[in-house]
Each structure stands twice: as structure tokens, then as C-alpha cells.
């Protein structure tokens, strides 16, 4: 591929996509809670930026609304809520020991390669920009899942959950210029409610197991012995 031949805005889109992927990797390996939330906020900022760029390039004016919505919700409101919760639960300085960060990052890289492989059939009729960005969006979804699998702290899991949503939104923006407005508003509403409910759950979990380590939620078994 020849990046230099692309227009400036396309190059900007690809560069921001790379940065979004980078923030996903930060979330994977960042053991401290506060920088983890900041990484998530940066991902939201980049997502809003890329949405505005795509809106500029494609002339799809409704994407500006999505960009504003993303900026407000994913870059400010939800990170702020998470941060406030972390402070109220007094875990903002906590460090979650990761067993094997390097192996985790290697698995993450493997997932990125896998995403490029998966996206081949989707992007066959598309341009170079879309080919890269769709693969990156799939990678962000998979990395978000990896965060949820690998991390035990409830806040880290929520950050993973929300970054899965970021990946899905990213996929919609780059492959189809976003979803119809009514759907996008509905999804934004769901995400907001989910964020509030997660906050409620942090307190319930702590009241029940005296910790936010969800790996200790292990009373229910598939088969009772």
C-alpha cells in the first residue's frame, strides 16, 4: 500500500485509527486505575476526531452530531463518572498486578493480525482507508474483550466493556458512515444507562464481597456439588 498517495484527510484518518489501537493496548497493560480511565477518555477523543474527519471527507453532515455525542459521552461524561466512582470507592490509586503483561500484549498483537484476516471479506469492495480502519475496529472490539478476560477489577472490566462499544461505533462510522440517527441515539442512551448501572454495581459488589475484585464472585456454579 502507498500511504503517501492518499489525500491528507485519509492519512489523518489512518493515523488516528492507529492511535485508537494504541489506546486499546494501553488499556490492556495499564495496571493503575486512574491512567486506565484516562486512556479510555483519550480513545473517546480520538473516536470523536475521526468521526468529524469522516464527516468532513464524506460530507455526511449527520456524522457531526455523532462526533459531538461521542465527544460528550465517551471522552468526558463516562470517564468523569468512572473517575468520580473510583475516588468515592477510594481505589483511584490502586494497582492491579498483572500476571504476565508481556504475554498479554503478545496475545493482543495476535488479535490485531487476526482482525486483519477476518476483515478481508468485508472490505473487498472498499478503499485502502476502509480496509485498515475496519480491521482496526474489529481489533478494538477483540482487545476490549481481552481486557475483560484478563483483568479482575470491576472498573477495568467496565473500561473494557465500553471500549468494545467504542470499537463497534468505530466500525459503523468507517464502514457505513454511522448508523441511522435514531439508532445512534438509542445506542447512546443504552450506553449511558449502562454506565450509571455499572456505578451502582460497584457499590453492590463492594458491599457484598468487600472488594472490587470480580474474580472473587464465584459462589454460583453450573453444577451444584
Amino acid at each position, binding site marked *: 500500500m502507498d500511504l503517501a498517495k492518499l489525500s491528507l484527510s485519509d492519512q489523518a484518518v489512518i493515523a488516528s485509527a492507529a492511535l485508537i489501537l494504541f489506546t486499546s493496548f494501553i488499556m490492556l497493560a495499564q495496571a493503575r486505575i486512574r491512567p486506565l480511565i484516562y486512556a479510555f477518555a483519550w480513545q473517546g477523543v480520538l473516536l470523536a476526531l475521526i468521526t468529524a474527519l469522516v464527516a468532513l471527507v464524506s460530507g455526511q453532515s449527520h456524522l457531526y452530531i455523532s462526533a459531538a455525542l461521542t465527544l460528550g459521552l465517551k471522552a468526558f461524561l463516562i470517564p468523569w463518572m468512572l473517575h468520580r466512582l473510583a475516588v468515592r470507592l477510594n481505589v483511584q490509586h490502586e494497582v492491579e498486578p498483572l500476571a504476565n503483561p508481556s504475554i498479554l500484549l503478545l496475545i493482543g498483537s495476535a488479535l490485531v493480525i487476526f482482525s486483519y484476516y477476518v476483515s478481508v471479506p468485508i472490505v473487498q469492495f472498499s478503499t485502502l482507508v476502509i480496509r485498515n480502519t475496519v480491521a482496526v475496529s474489529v481489533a478494538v472490539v477483540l482487545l476490549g474483550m481481552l481486557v475483560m478476560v484478563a483483568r479482575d477489577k470491576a472498573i477495568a472490566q467496565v473500561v473494557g466493556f465500553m471500549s468494545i462499544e467504542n470499537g463497534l461505533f468505530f466500525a459503523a462510522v468507517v464502514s457505513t458512515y454511522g448508523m441511522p440517527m435514531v439508532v445512534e441515539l438509542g445506542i447512546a442512551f443504552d450506553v449511558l444507562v449502562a454506565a450509571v*448501572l455499572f456505578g451502582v454495581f460497584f457499590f453492590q459488589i463492594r458491599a457484598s464481597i468487600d472488594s472490587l475484585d470480580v474474580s472473587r464472585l464465584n459462589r454460583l456454579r453450573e453444577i*451444584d456439588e
Partner: protein
Amino acid sequence: MTSLWLLLAIALFGTALLALIGHLPYAGRVSVIISAAKVAASLWLAYGVLEHGPLLSAGKLFFVDAFNVYLIVLTTFVGFTTAIFSHRYMAHEADVRGLGHRRMRLYHSMYHAFLFAMLAALVANNLGILWVAMEGATLATVLLVSIYRTPESVEAAWKYFVLCGVGIAQALFGTVLLYFAAEQVIPNRDDALLWTVLYATAGSLDPTVLTLAFVFLLIGYGTKVGLVPLHNWLPDAHSEGPTPMSAILSGLLLNVALYALVRVKMLVDGSLGTNLAGHLLMGFGLVSFMAAGLFLHRQRDIKRMFSYSSIEHMGLMTFAFGIGGTLATFGALLHMTVHSLAKSALFVTAGHVSQVAGTQRIERIRGLIRTQPALGWSLLIGTVALAGFPPFGLFASEFLVLTATINSWPWLALPLLVGLSIAFAGLFRHLQPMVYGEPPPGQTPVRVNLLPVLAHMVLLLWLGLAMPGFLADWFKQATVLITGSWDTDELL
């Protein structure tokens, strides 16, 4: 059209009203009245659709045809009978478990919010709105699962939230892919996610992208249906929450998720021209059916046991929709109805049973038929109906599915029969001592309201013995919609 708006408005009104007055002693009664109003509105809607054919709202936001209208009626009906049960049951629970005003308001309000989400998912013409409503259903119920604040219930709610959330995220990705395929051929972007438009253009959608989309949608909505191996959240969420929630989760949510899957299958079939989607559904369905039957044997909690039975039945329906064809689809549609009725009746009974015994542990529930004969008989007859004995409706539907299997996949009839007997044995080995055993000393009856159970059993009997003509006609219309034809040869 008015009836549809009215139905949704009543559900929203109920959510708002009960958020304000849910803690008052008569809130349960208000909830029953609102639910009754919903049933009336849905019957009006059904009458309109039956008389004048499919309904498309202005702005193409909502769409009602023979397939979803009967699920709408079923949803409001089960919502209504469960509200009758919930009225007295929750008053008792509030006393025993010390649920405060806030939690009672939350409970009553979210009960109607959940029903609103179910109805919105059913009537939505837009796949994206369907997704939003399905996620909304999770959000409305997740706090109810943890309403007792025990460590188990908080764990169950967290699992429910996270597993369903991640699962259904896959469905959103599938929806994006579908939109991507549709956008290439449908000129107006805003129309590209509408069922009505998609069905008309199914043939020209790109098959590769659609296959990929179907896989993601299957994983996403399959999580909600409770297909093995995506079922882990289901027994926990169904067993730890308050019993009325278990009844409507098992009776309604699973149906609506399966409805979404079948709609998507209709679309994918139209595009691919092969039975790939059907084969995937058959595989997942059969695995769920067999695995859940085996899990049934190892359960020690009465509500968990019935949850696994839900997985088993959903597996059977998924399998039947996968086979396709007139007979299997007709059987699956009927099974959706009768399973909802039987399962919600059984959860209602199980709720009362655990109040009598003071526990949900099966080994400590004994001698119901002596302590409280009405309850013992309800549990016994309900389970007999659930296991698919004649003359109840589940016998008819399971028989149809079995016949269809013998017609098109003869060798699959064997695992199906084995699975049915495994599930039957699993239910009855637990049931027998609970009903007939020696009651523990000091076990006393509680005030129960078995009206919902009775109503469901009468309906099940009616559906099993003589299905009314208009209902058969209705299922027929839905079958034609799903399979595209009414093959009378298959019925002989």
C-alpha cells in the same frame, strides 16, 4: 395504528407511574390494572392485524405482521398473569426480606420498563431499534436480579450484565455488517435497516457479508436465547432474582431473542438461497437441548432446575426453526407459546413453593402435597405439562417437531427422543420427593394466588386438545411468512 401507540404508551405510563407510587400498598394492584390495559390494547391490535393484514406505522418505525402480533399478545398476557402473582408475592417478600420503599418502586417500575422493552423489540421495524430494545431489556432487569443484595444475587446480576452485554455487542456488530451490505443496494440510507425494505431486497444483498453478519447476530441474540455454550448467565439470573422476574425472563425474554434470530434467518435465507443459517440453528439448538437436559439432573435449586429446562426448550425451538419447512416451523411457533405459558406458570408455582419451604434448595422441599395440596398439584401438573405429556399443548408441539424431524432428518430423531427422555427423567427425579415426600415438621401453608397457574393450565389444555381455528390460522400465516410457503404435502 392507534392501538399500537396506545400499547406502548400504557407500558411507558406504567413505568413512570410506578416509579412514583411503587412503594404504596396498592401498587401491586395498580400494576395489575396497567397490565390488564396492555392486554386489552394488544388484543385490539391483534384484531386489527387479523382483519386488515400487516400494519406499517407512519415513518416506517413500527411494523406488525402475523409473526410478531401473536408474540405481542403472548407477552402482554404473561405480563398480566405474572403481575397478578407478583402483587401478593412481592408484598410477602418485602415483609420477609425487608425490601424498602426505594426497592419496591424500582421493582414495580422496572417490571413495566422490561415489558415496554419487549414490546418495542417486537414491533420495531428497524434492526437497530430492535438491538437497542434488547439491550434495554437487560438494563431494565439487571438491577432486579440483585434486588435482594445477597452475595449470590449480586454475582448473578454482574454475570448477567457483563455476559449479556458482551454477547449482545456481537449482535450490534452483526447489525453494522448487515447495514453495510444493505447500504450498497438500498438508495435511502435511513431505510437500509428496516425489515420491510430488507425483505424486499434480500436477493441482492452480498452473501459473503450477510453470512458473516448472521454469525455475529447468532452469537449475539443466541446469548440472550440462552444457547449452549453462551448460556452461563441464564440459570444464575433466573434463579437469584425475584420469582416474577424469573417467570417473565424465561417466558418472554427468551422468546423475543429467538424472534430476532428467526427474523434474521428469514433475511439470510432470502439472500444466500442455501440453508446455512438453518443448519447453524439446528446445530446450536440440538447441543443446547441435549446439554441442558443433562444439566437438569445435577441441579439442587428448584428455580435453577426450571432455568435449565428453559434452555432445553429454547434449544428445541431453535432446532425446529433451523429445520424450516411448514411442519417444523408451525411446531416451533406453537412451542414458543405453550412453553411460555407452562414455564411462567411453573415459576409462579416455584415461587410459592419456596415461600412454603423457606428455601429454594430441592432437598429441603418435601411433602408439598400434604402441606398444601393445591400447590403440590400445581407443581405436579405443571411439570407433567412441561415434560410434554398429553393432553397438554407441549405434547402437540413436540410431536409436530418430532414428526418434522423424522420427515427431513430421520437420524436426528434419535438424539431428539433420547434428549426428551433425559429431560423428563431429570425433572421427575427432583419432582417426586418434593411433591410426595415426608413434609418437614412445622411446614405450614402460605397464602397463594394460583389463578395465573390455573389460567395457563387451562389454556395449555385447550391448545393441546383442540386448537381454536383462528389461532391455527394465525400460526399458519406466520409459518407462511417465515418459510415462504404452506406445504400441505408435509402435513399429511
